[in-house]
């Protein structure tokens, strides 16, 4: 796909985020919108996957370590054809396969159950280690939040991945600068992020605009070519990207749009497309 085509897909994914969280009357639209371009690029351009065969052995793996951005992952998977887009309206409803945080046993295309922050990256490292050990060809991608990396387990996992030179692992930090209680600086910043991952023996790529497909394309290409070390892509993103009143607003971390806000958000996103 061209960058423009990918951009259009990401816009559809954003609509899915709004539809899902609006229907759920809860959930996390801000981070999901901010990471929509990253997940779109991964599922529509980067990863070796087949929506018709979600468990195929050699598929690339994606672990949403920041599991609260499930609305974004679900919208991406639905857009990619893993399940009907109508399912997004069942998000967080009793009996739905779309749980508040991802469950690999419920949702086609979800490679690991996540939600408790800091744990997903460990599973991703385990997947990458397994591939190295048994000679599997797949690559593993893990998406983390810049608030999530305050969890100590993230650095336990990073230490192991760096020491084991897992170059089939690509960690992406969604660096939008906001967490629930405020900006990451106000709360307990893990800055400088790039230097930290370098210190943990990662090849680090800094993406100035993580909502730009061309920049994401270049970064993932570089990650793929990197040998002898895992890659960490630190992506500067805009939380709430694409919906004017949600952009860079802490308050939209974990709040659903009401009917009026839903209409406005959908109108803005429809203008984009």
């Amino acid at each position, binding site marked *: 796909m061209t960058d423009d085509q990918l951009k259009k897909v990401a816009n559809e994914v954003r609509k899915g985020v709004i539809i899902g969280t609006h229907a759920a009357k809860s959930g996390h639209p801000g981070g999901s919108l901010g990471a929509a371009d990253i997940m779109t690029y991964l599922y529509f351009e980067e990863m070796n996957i087949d929506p018709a065969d979600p468990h195929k052995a050699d598929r690339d793996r994606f672990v949403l370590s920041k599991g609260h951005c499930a609305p974004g992952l679900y919208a991406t998977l639905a857009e990619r054809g893993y399940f009907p887009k109508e399912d997004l309206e069942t998000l967080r409803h009793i009996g739905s396969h779309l749980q508040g945080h991802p469950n690999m046993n419920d949702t086609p295309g979800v490679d690991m159950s996540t939600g408790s922050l800091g744990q997903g990256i460990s599973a991703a*490292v385990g997947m990458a*280690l397994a591939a190295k050990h048994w000679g599997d060809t797949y690559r593993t991608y893990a998406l983390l939040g810049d608030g999530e990396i305050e969890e100590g387990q993230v650095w*336990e996992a990073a230490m192991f991945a760096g020491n084991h030179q897992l170059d089939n692992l690509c960690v992406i930090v969604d660096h939008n600068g906001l967490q629930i209680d405020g900006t990451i600086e106000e709360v307990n910043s893990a800055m400088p992020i790039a230097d930290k991952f370098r210190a943990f023996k990662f090849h680090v790529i800094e993406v100035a605009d993580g909502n730009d497909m061309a920049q994401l394309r270049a970064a993932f290409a570089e990650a793929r070519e990197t040998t002898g070390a895992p890659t960490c892509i630190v992506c500067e993103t805009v939380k709430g990207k694409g919906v004017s009143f949600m952009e860079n607003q802490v308050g939209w971390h974990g709040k659903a749009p009401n009917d009026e806000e839903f209409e406005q958000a959908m109108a803005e996103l429809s203008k984009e497309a």
Partner: protein
Amino acid sequence: MADVKKIATRQSYGEALVELGAEHDDFVVFDADLAAATQTGKFKAAYPDRFFDAGIAESNMMGLAAGVATTGRVAFASTFAMFAAGRAFEQVRNSIGYPHLNVKVGATHAGISVGEDGATHQCNEDIALMRTIPGMTVIVPADDVEARACVRAAYEYEGPVYMRFGRLATPVINDRPDYSFEIGKGIVMREGADVTIVACGLMVAAALEAAEKLAADGIDAEVIDMHTIKPIDAETIIASARKTGKVVTAEEHSVIGGLGSAVCDVLAESCPVPVKKVGVQDVYGESGPAVDLLKKYGLDADGVEAAVRELLA
């Protein structure tokens, strides 16, 4: 039972892994810088490329094991019970239990028989913690023979398993040709009519010893080796309780939430009878030689015998 052969179940664990490794190459073993103590060092020596040291990072180790298990292989994750069930509880619950992954947690140095290291390392809460996780199988083997069988059964079983092993060398009581191990199936070690003693881990040998002493006084105790705490063998417990009408539970674990509680859950619903729980009485342990500690905290044949006499009095 001074002349009985004694082996620590952690040693059985390490050796069983080596045996399993000779037969299967679809599993790996993780440890967290305790390979010599947990005895996974034996596996490391035999199959260095199939052993991974997570370092002193138990939470990450559980996640690594989960990640491996998502690929359809099996991962053993080993450390002390304190760190496996305690520190990494939430990782075991959310990254292993919730997705029901094929991770086998080999937890050694459980209970007060850790000895000199003292209270920080004496985990008397792990059975309680692990049995609350939906879908988790919890096994506490009684001796070397059972520990080896449990490792093999855990490997073959589909789903997460928590195995509890001890540091202290304990009597081998199941070395007989007709021994067979089945997850979730307790073993009646001694038949009796007056009282039922349901035990696990090193307390099974203590219960058998107590039963011999009680027999000298004409008290006929039935002893059940309840190696699987979850799923608990309700059928065997109820059948025995119906026969004897009195139950003593014995475990090297807190009396809160462990084997005793699991047995009470069964009896309260299906066969209410008086129960006396032998275990750690809601206190922390302390430093000291393991055998002396077991005696001090009533976790030996004398402790079980006293509990039975109290219940029958």
